[in-house]
């Protein structure tokens, strides 16, 4: 482990002990609201022209170039087996680190906002009962709008919290 990443590791551990709240970025996918740890998202992009890759897996839309780097774009709808959509002006790509130097882009319907969730606002995935897929790590229920920055959703908001690692393991 390099000194740098060790330091980063230490910093994140400190942050979680200082304040119990963690930040999640929420986005929409086929009508549902999902959220991922904000730290896992490197950048949000408007989709550039995507070059399709023949013979690639079904959930891979293609490749794009982000400032000279090749990025594989995964359609999260297809990945989760949701009905497909052509996309519109609100469609975005979340750039996430996929191990090593590689970045993977995740195609989502719309990026919503950042939620700061306390541990009490997160239910474990087991409340859904039965066997849940590995990428669902819990359910977020933000208690109040005030807790989030400029939120426009009521307290009834339900966030499906995702772990991106199994999602981008293709």
């Amino acid at each position, binding site marked *: 482990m*390099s000194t740098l990443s060790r330091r980063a590791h230490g910093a994140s551990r400190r942050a979680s002990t200082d304040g119990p709240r963690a930040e999640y970025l929420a986005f929409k996918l086929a009508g549902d609201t999902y959220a991922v740890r904000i730290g896992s998202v490197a950048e949000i992009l408007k989709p550039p022209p995507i*070059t399709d*890759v*023949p*013979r690639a897996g*079904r959930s891979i839309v293609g*490749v794009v170039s982000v400032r*000279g780097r*090749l990025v594989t774009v995964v359609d999260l709808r297809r990945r989760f087996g949701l009905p497909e959509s052509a996309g519109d002006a609100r469609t975005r790509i979340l*750039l996430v680190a996929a191990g090593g130097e590689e970045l993977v882009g995740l195609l989502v319907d719309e990026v919503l906002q950042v939620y700061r969730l306390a541990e009490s606002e997160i239910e474990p995935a087991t409340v859904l009962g039965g066997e849940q897929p590995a990428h669902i790590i819990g359910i977020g229920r933000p208690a109040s709008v005030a807790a989030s920055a400029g939120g426009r959703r009521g307290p009834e908001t339900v966030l499906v919290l995702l772990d991106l690692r199994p999602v981008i393991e293709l």
Partner: protein
Amino acid sequence: MAEQGNGGRSEGPADKAREEFFSEAQELVDGLGRDLLTLDSGVKSGRVDPELINDVFRAVHTLKGLSGIFGATMMTGVSHELEDVLDELRLGRMEVSAPVLDVVFRAVELYGRLLSAERGDGPAPEAEVEALLMALGGLTGRGAGAEASPVAQYELDPGLLGVLTEYEEHRLRSSIQSGLNLFKLRVQFPLATIDTALDDLKAKARPLGEIITYLPTGGGSDADAIELEILMASREKVATVKRELESPNLHIEEVARRHVGPGPNTSAPMRPSVSPTPIPSFEAEPGTALAQLHSHTPGTSIAPPPEGAKDVSLRSVSQTVRVDIRKLDHLMNIVGELAIVRTSLGAMAERLRQRPELREVSQELHRVHRAFDRHLQQMQNGILEVRMVPLAQAFDKLARIVRQLSRELDKPVNLVITGAETELDKLLVEELSDPLMHMIRNAIDHGIETRNERAEVGKPSMGTIALNAFQKGNQVVLEVEDDGRGMAQSLLISSAIRKGILTAEEAREMSPREILSLVFRPGFTTREEVNETSGRGVGMDVVKTNIARLGGIVDLSSEEGIGTKVTITLPITLAIISVLFVEVCGRSYAMPLTSVEEAIAFDSSMVRVVDGRDVMTVRGTTLPICSLAKLFGHPPASFPSHGFVAIASVGNRRLGFVVDRLVGQQDIVIKALGRTLRNVRGFAGATELGDQRVTLVLDVSALVDEVLAAPGDSRVRAHGEGRAS
């Protein structure tokens, strides 16, 4: 997201220093390996260069220091023990022999893994370190009993012998053992010019023999002069030495042999305490030698302080700079961006030319554009040149593996290397190491027969593996050839059937060439048992995939009883390749020109079907063809009525790819597709053109293999549509 590219990544000073440590240590370890190989061949031919042992000793000493600073304790431990062994070798207290070198080779091998472990790339090889330390300790234990000194046969002043360093004593002993004559020289030098005068004398003495030591006598008639006693070994007779070294204040006499056996005083040769730093040879650093001279004779404070010695130790002799390859990649990316700027500049100048009133501006812009173009080209070539390293970097490691394996398997092998100086992109050389290692292992384990088998068929007991590299146009060809048993077609087929790779019916229809290519199938092995060397079934298919990823081609030829040859053809550099852009169903693809022979017009009426395969006739020969659209599952899956055929040639196989349109030819910067796409066959990478659009670069070799391997037409279609849509 961080700034683009890796060149702009910020690193803490600690990380940077650590990186430096890794690259310096790696260089030392590589150098060690090279020196050991030379030493090994020296041992075999009976001539061991003492300076080489010194080099090895120094490298290990430096590694010890480095690893100590960076807290790599296991490396420090290994270095410490290894240093002890090398010291024994250096001082001639232990003989340089194959078993000793085996242990030293093991240590160098282990250094590589220890470095990886330090980087976090692998587990620390604790058990191996433990075993090695035992082995090293065993060596030094054995070496402790030194033989009786032959020095005693000579009438040498015990006072002189008493101040010899261990190294000097060793040189003296080995000179005597080689039957050289010993001479004692007494010379007086003026204090002011002692440095130059001593150098002059050494220069004159060098053709005659070796100066073993020189010491001030403390005598001398003049207060401004110093008298030295010099011990020299030479093949020449005393008269010759006297004649050659003739000088006013010089007195020469031959050291006489005693006519008695070794006396009791010789069994314990005097050894001054071993200095922690390696003792420099006198030839190399006269300043240091003088400093030593002082330490021997603390009473005689003469000669100016040896300032030179201090400078030498601080100043680096090297004119080179180590650069992270990623920084060069970053620069190459910038060159790529500039090429795009250049294109728009050219287009702009062209537009201006249409306007008569802007003629002057247009002309000036054209000049600027040309200059820009020229300099950009120079810059591109410059960066590519920096990336080039000789293949020797990869070959040296292979030579170590050959040595180790041939001893382990008891198959004597002579590795013949040609073209190690051939230069290739650094990244390619790195990526080649593993595939080449697989191939060499296969050659020794499967190819070369046992001693008995070789004797039975009348082959020399020593097997030969030839590792050849040469440049051919803008490609580099690598060959690994062995004179072993070759591949038996029947054995290949039965193994493939047993592994379920092939059915008996399929086997009956295969051509000899197709049978040979079975070794490239995943999971193929002829071995029933897995051993340490090979036979784990991750062999040639991995080699082939890795080489294809580098834009290269693997070819195999083998003759039963005579040997096997694997040929790899690679582009010289990964960074920039020339491609032909083709268009099919509105999508653009790039085909590397290295594998495209020519492109000709196509008409669907040219297509014939022979044995379920589409072919056409080109200048009297039959060319199998396939529709790129069909291969990639782009609708419609039929041939276009008019279009073009890009004729690919890979090894001696040819295939025409039918496309709709040829777009043009261009030099591009190729980039690897991410790991997420690693299972997608048929693409070597992608490139970005000016408009931010990404274009895929075809892995022509893989596609040709795929199409030609499929029996008839049906499988191609199934393959193409199976994963697409």
